[in-house]
């Protein structure tokens, strides 16, 4: 029965030019992430990045004659659903790697299941320092706050900040970032006047800004995502708070400018991803992204693109099996990447070092490379 169906399929597709690539069983990645619920926007960005990568991979004939594909299971970034998805993936032998989830409570709740099944959980947005400590099958190419924040502090110093005030999201991500920033600051001659944590659903930052202002800072450092970062800049602008703003890489998104309007004009944005970057990986990604979606990519879609490319490369170099994924991540060196110069994983931390950091400035409503002029 099985045999005859396979024969039939082969017969039906043999006449097509791409017959072999299409008929072959696809190599599958399982994606656990939010497609609905409050974080659905990030899942949507992931999909754009994945699909673009797959266009290129499968357009070039796939991996060893087999197409690469992913199964996206909506978890709403909810731990209960993420663990159910995890069981589904580990039980499906066709799935050889898992990508996601989005937020730490969901990702880390699912980690024990992936670890026990020896299925690689690749949390490409998981910056929680304990995520990769969940087991030797937890990997991440998310930019690491311990690495990023010293860069941010360094740029703050270069911009001439002496007494910055820090506003940070009071989540595991924002907290990690803040601690790393505060640790790096004194060595660079920065005296942080206040560090204000705010809740993720917050929209009104006026009182927070007054509080920051009263600590008499000479600049504001925002450890925010793009939506809340844009709100803060706008409200600072509206309340007439004329302080230079320096924001973390997570605010880099065309939406930051769209939502921030006049408020983000002049803001300094640290970024690992910049469409104007001359490196060929970046240029081809940006051109393809614009052509496919008629919009600008952001760091979430770039991260998803990088991750899917990494997956295809791992399959190609090490073979499409679960064991090969783990072995490949331990072994792979200098993988080209949009976010990083070259990706090599540290086998101890199972994270990547050496992202490209550059400082951008919002000028006339678009991101430009910082011209080196001090802010204060």
């Amino acid at each position: 029965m099985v045999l005859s169906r396979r024969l039939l399929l082969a017969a039906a597709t043999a006449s097509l030019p791409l017959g072999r690539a299409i008929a072959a069983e696809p190599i599958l990645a399982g994606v656990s992430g939010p497609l609905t619920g409050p974080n659905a926007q990030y899942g949507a960005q992931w999909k754009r990045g994945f699909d673009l990568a797959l266009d290129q991979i499968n357009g070039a004939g796939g991996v060893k004659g087999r197409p690469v594909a992913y199964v996206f299971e909506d978890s709403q970034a909810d731990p209960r659903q993420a663990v159910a998805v995890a069981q589904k993936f580990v039980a499906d032998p066709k799935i050889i790697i898992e990508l996601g989830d989005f937020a730490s409570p969901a990702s880390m709740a699912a980690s024990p299941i992936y670890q026990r099944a020896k299925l690689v959980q690749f949390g490409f947005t998981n910056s929680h320092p304990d995520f990769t400590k969940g087991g030797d099958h937890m990997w991440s190419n998310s930019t690491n706050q311990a690495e990023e924040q010293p860069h941010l502090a360094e740029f703050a110093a270069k911009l001439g900040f002496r007494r910055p005030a820090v506003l940070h999201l009071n989540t595991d991500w924002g907290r990690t970032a803040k601690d790393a920033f505060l640790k790096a600051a004194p060595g660079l001659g920065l005296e942080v006047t206040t560090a204000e944590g705010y809740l993720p659903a917050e929209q009104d930052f006026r009182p927070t800004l007054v509080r920051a202002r009263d600590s008499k800072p000479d600049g504001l450092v925002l450890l925010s995502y793009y939506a809340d970062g844009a709100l803060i800049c706008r409200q600072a602008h509206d309340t007439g708070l004329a302080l230079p703003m320096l924001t973390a890489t997570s605010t880099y998104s065309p939406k930051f400018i769209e939502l921030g309007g006049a408020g983000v004009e002049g803001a300094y944005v640290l970024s690992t991803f910049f469409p104007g970057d001359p490196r060929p990986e970046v240029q081809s990604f940006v051109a393809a992204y614009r052509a496919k979606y008629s919009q600008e990519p952001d760091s979430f879609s770039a991260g998803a693109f990088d991750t899917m490319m990494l997956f295809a490369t791992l399959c190609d170099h090490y073979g499409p099996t679960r064991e090969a994924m783990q072995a490949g991540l331990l072994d792979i060196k200098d993988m080209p990447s949009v976010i990083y110069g070259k990706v090599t994983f540290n086998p101890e931390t199972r994270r990547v070092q050496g992202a490209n950091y550059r400082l951008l400035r919002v000028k006339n409503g678009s991101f430009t490379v910082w011209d080196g002029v001090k802010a204060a």
Partner: protein
Amino acid sequence: MGSWLDYTINGLIIGNIYALVAVGLALIFGVSHLINFAHGSVYAVGAYVGWACFTYLNLPLPLTALVVIMVCGGLGVLIERLGLRPLAGAPRIAPLLATIGISLVIDQVLQILFTPDPRALPSPLPEWRITIGSGTIGALDVLIAATGLVSAVVLYGFLRFTRLGWAVRATAQDRDAARQVGVDTDAVNRAVFAIASALGGLSGLLVGMYFNHIDPAMSFQATLKGVVAQVIGGMGNVPGAVAGSLLLGLTESWGVALFGSSYRNLFSFVLLLLILVLRPNGLFASARTTPPEPMTGTFIAPSRVVRVPPWAVGLAVAAAICVPLIPAIPYVLQVLTNAWLMAMLAISLTLVAGTLGQVSLGHAALLLLGAYASALLTLDSGWPVWLSVPTAGVLTAVIGTALVAPAFRLRSHYVSIATLGIGEIVSLVILNWESLTRGPMGVTNIPPLAIGGLELDSPQASYWSSLAVLIVLAGLQLRLLRSHLGRTFRAIRDDDVAARAYGVSLDRYKGIGFAFAGFGAGMSGAIAAHLYSYINNETFTSTVSITALTMVILGGMGNVLGGILGAVALTALPELFRGTAEYRMLIYGVVLLLLIRFRPQGVLGTV
């Protein structure tokens, strides 16, 4: 000192924004005694309609506002006609759930149509600003304040001086009596929903312009703040809602000034609880206001309970025990394990909401308490898991009951709002009490379930241990319902005045009920913590409370087997619709609405 002026002005500005939403909520509550959870969704629709008018039609602001008012007014009429009017004879909790279902559907439709990405909604108003203190206010701030005040004044005048306004108030006071004297109460409801929704849509447009940010998730926050504001001002009191909103804005702003932003919502909810306990009818209520009627009790629609024969229950239990014997279905086991954990929460909630008549909207807080208690006992105090899980149940019972005790004197919707507030407070305290709870980083490396040296971390073992705890809890609860305790609980639910007249101490029995419920929910949270190995303050959100309530109603209020059935159905449904990804929450919402419409007393009937 200058900063205090700034904090005050900032508080008033955000208070203005809350007022826009609170006025519409108050109007609807005043007439229908209904917290309209769909109001926030209408508000989001208003924002998106405005965005479409600006972007595609290039309409000026006044025309855009007119379109928004008409579309949202029409949507309000539709909500009333399709979602609420058919439920006129249903238990009074049914329309409340219907609004939750409608809200799910609208939010999902918005998300599918407009993608979940946030969008900018730039204000076309002129860019002038006046400096006050060391901050400034602009044209939009003035427009928002004016809209809030004018709508409150106009509505007040409408209710007081027009014939339709009188009809609205008559309907609010006594629907049946109003009908007898010839008021067309359906028309009144329609009018009220149209006005309130038009206003809601307009507020969405203005607030979207204010933040230059609209997204489909904006609806829940708006509803939450609006509800708090109108409780402060007095439920159903339109001018009070404006005053309550301003007070809420000021409290938040001053709270941030004193303690920092991370405590912000804590002040809103503490203020909410203070008002509820000290002046349950709001700051501005007159002494003559009649006490609220119980939400389930006296007006509960009598329904025939479906008697499930004991052999069928036995068979179902046996089947459930045997499921893990089927090989290679870890996903099914995980979904069912989740269902058993949710079922523990559901039967806990069905006890307080159904049997005792105290509808809790903050039940997820009990999960958080249990999860943290057990996680911290094992990690910080080195307790074995088999001991820490039941201890977490006991701790949750004690802490949960103590927290809710001040709300024992409340009735009806006030209990629901108080528990909603307590739930948010628990989550915020966990976030901020870092020395104990590790704050936003959460608790990592929680050991798996184990008895002695036997680790229960396989899907089968997790399944059986959750099921075993559920069976014991359900058995205890069924026993309790048949005892004098169960009878007393139902007496309190059906008529607390009569119960008191018979010498029943309300507080003591409510305390026993909540303690029992807290124990079960705490165990559920504790087991979940050991299954997940990582928890933080966002592991169990207010959505879980709403889902649990939906399960309870689906199964039939107070019905233990119904609660379990509801939990299994509502955990399995979204999983079954998994293939439809983006559409599954929409389908879930529609299914929920159909159930409420055609079987509001629940599948197995109210006990």
